[in-house]
């Protein structure tokens, strides 16, 4: 994780990519968590009931609140760990984009309903 960002040109300001990559990966994790919570809520009546944080909105309130909490918690942890580091941007971005693509696919009902 400490390999330097190869895209950083000579003479560039000493801003590490860690905080930026922490924000990107945690955003992707948050989106993925939302998709997973939505599927879990559809699959189990018990989880569905547990996700009702605000009755008029139903399980969507728990799905979205849960995802936001996962996103912010992941962001806080990653930012704390990577705040002064230069991390492997290529691998982290690939993981983040994969999670984002999966999030779009899993929330698409014909695919999400397969689980």
């Amino acid at each position: 994780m400490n390999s330097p960002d190869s895209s950083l040109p000579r003479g560039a300001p000493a801003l590490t990519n860690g905080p930026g990559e922490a924000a990107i990966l945690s955003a992707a994790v948050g989106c993925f968590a939302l998709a997973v919570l939505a599927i879990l809520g559809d699959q189990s009546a018990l989880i569905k009931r547990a996700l009702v944080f605000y009755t008029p909105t139903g399980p969507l309130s728990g799905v979205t609140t849960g995802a936001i909490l996962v996103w912010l918690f992941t962001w806080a942890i990653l930012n704390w760990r990577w705040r002064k580091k230069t991390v492997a941007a290529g691998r982290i971005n690939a993981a983040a984009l994969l999670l984002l693509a999966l999030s779009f696919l899993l929330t698409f009902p014909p695919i999400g309903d397969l689980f």
Partner: protein
Amino acid sequence: MEITERALWTLIHGMGFGALYLLACSGGLVGLYQLTASPAPESTPSRERFVRTYLLIMVMLAWASVLIGTYVVYPWYRAAPPPGTTDLSMFPQRLLMSSPATIGWHSLGMEWKEHVAWFVPISITMVAFVFIRYGRHLGNHRQLRAAVLVFAAASFVAAGVAGFFGAMINKYAPVQGGHTVQLIRGEAK
């Protein structure tokens, strides 16, 4: 010219914050792309400040739209009718589900929209944070910049999906009811 309270909130959610966000997306993407290009001849502190403010407004629009959509409009959409109700016009979800011709607008449209819309504030908040943190120096981190642009574009796609289905659902089963708000007093000509 009148509008019901629920229709007004739906308008604020979709045509107000949601549509403004979609309109802002292309400008945000172009501004972000140009200002962080390496080398970026157009990068000046004032332009950087402008893009920063622009992105923060996008963040506010995105959060306002999803929060009003989820916690104000959606409860009216999914309200369950009392047993024996035959007129479902006040219960949009049940109205859509009552016909094979419209059920897809709920089972695919709303089911996707209600979740995918939340990718928008998450993504654009991240984009704004990264831009505020790195500014024009984002151009020095090509991989970081590329990922930020992809997420900004993804927020545009997610907002487009949510906006399209929101408009179509409201066409077939509008959210209505509540107090009537008089916008303008019309006159016969």
